[in-house]
């Protein structure tokens, strides 16, 4: 699955194409699905109950969990609630969609239909260690969009 640079680049591309503001809401949304589930990564540093935390927070890496969690974020923003929800949702939807590019030996984290199905859905294009490929592709796309907008505004 893509790294956070790739996810943020996708968010920035969406922001530029659709002129979305405030852009930080999109960027927060983009990282939201990984915010809790990545606690499991402490296992690379020391013995850590990774499976417990991975599965405890798995619902937050699924549409239903994100749709609910976004509601809980609304009171923290003194801003239009519908717009706040919409922008955060655009961010996390893009995250979940581009995580579909991931490839695993068997088990990924894209349980789109959780809790109704435990099937992991993915296109199987890129292994976890091939993250740099999407970074380069999305960076070129972002530069192309920025270049086009600059050219059009001249």
């Amino acid at each position, binding site marked *: 699955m893509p*790294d*956070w*640079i790739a*996810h*943020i680049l996708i968010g920035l591309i969406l922001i530029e194409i659709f002129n979305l503001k*405030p*852009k*930080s809401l999109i*960027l*927060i949304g*983009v*990282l939201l699905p990984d915010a809790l589930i990545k606690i499991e*990564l402490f*296992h*690379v540093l020391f*013995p*850590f*109950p*990774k*499976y*417990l935390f991975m*599965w*405890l*927070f*798995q*619902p937050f890496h699924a549409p*239903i*969990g994100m749709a*609910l*969690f976004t*509601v*809980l974020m*609304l*009171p*923290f*923003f*003194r*801003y239009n*609630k519908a717009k706040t929800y919409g922008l955060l949702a655009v961010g996390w939807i893009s995250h979940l969609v581009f995580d579909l590019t991931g490839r*695993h*030996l*068997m*088990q990924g984290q894209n349980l789109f239909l*959780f*809790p109704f199905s*435990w099937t992991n859905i993915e296109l199987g294009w890129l*292994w*976890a*260690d091939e*993250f740099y490929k999407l970074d380069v592709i999305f960076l070129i796309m972002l530069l192309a969009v920025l270049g086009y907008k600059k050219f059009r505004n001249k």
Partner: protein
Amino acid sequence: MKWHVYLAVIAALLFLMLYSVTNYHGHYPSLDTFYNEPEKYAGAIAENCGMMVDETSDGFILRAGVNKILVKYNQTSLRYPVLGTVCVLGAYNDGFIDAEAVRLNDFIFVKYFISFLAFLYVVFVFFREWKITKKGFRLR
């Protein structure tokens, strides 16, 4: 939004978390699953990712979470991952995993590091647009 809506959302999330953590063993058995119920999951095929902590004559020792296990994998090309982790697909047996496939995630720690830098960028952009007040975040 009324307080009881937030309460319902919190309850739903807690239910989903509880459902997930109590039911994953049947769908995606892990090393924890095997150590808890070795007889029930003997022969079950699963994927486990973690740190390769030692090499042995017939494979290597995998640390995934809090547990360590011997992975039997006879490939002459086997080596330690470079700045990364290892993922193993294989069947659980009594005290070891009989690996069908092994994937070395070289340089995945670099991915984690640059992802942390990306997180710092988001924090920077966020506080450039928002300020904290007693009632929450307000646009600057």
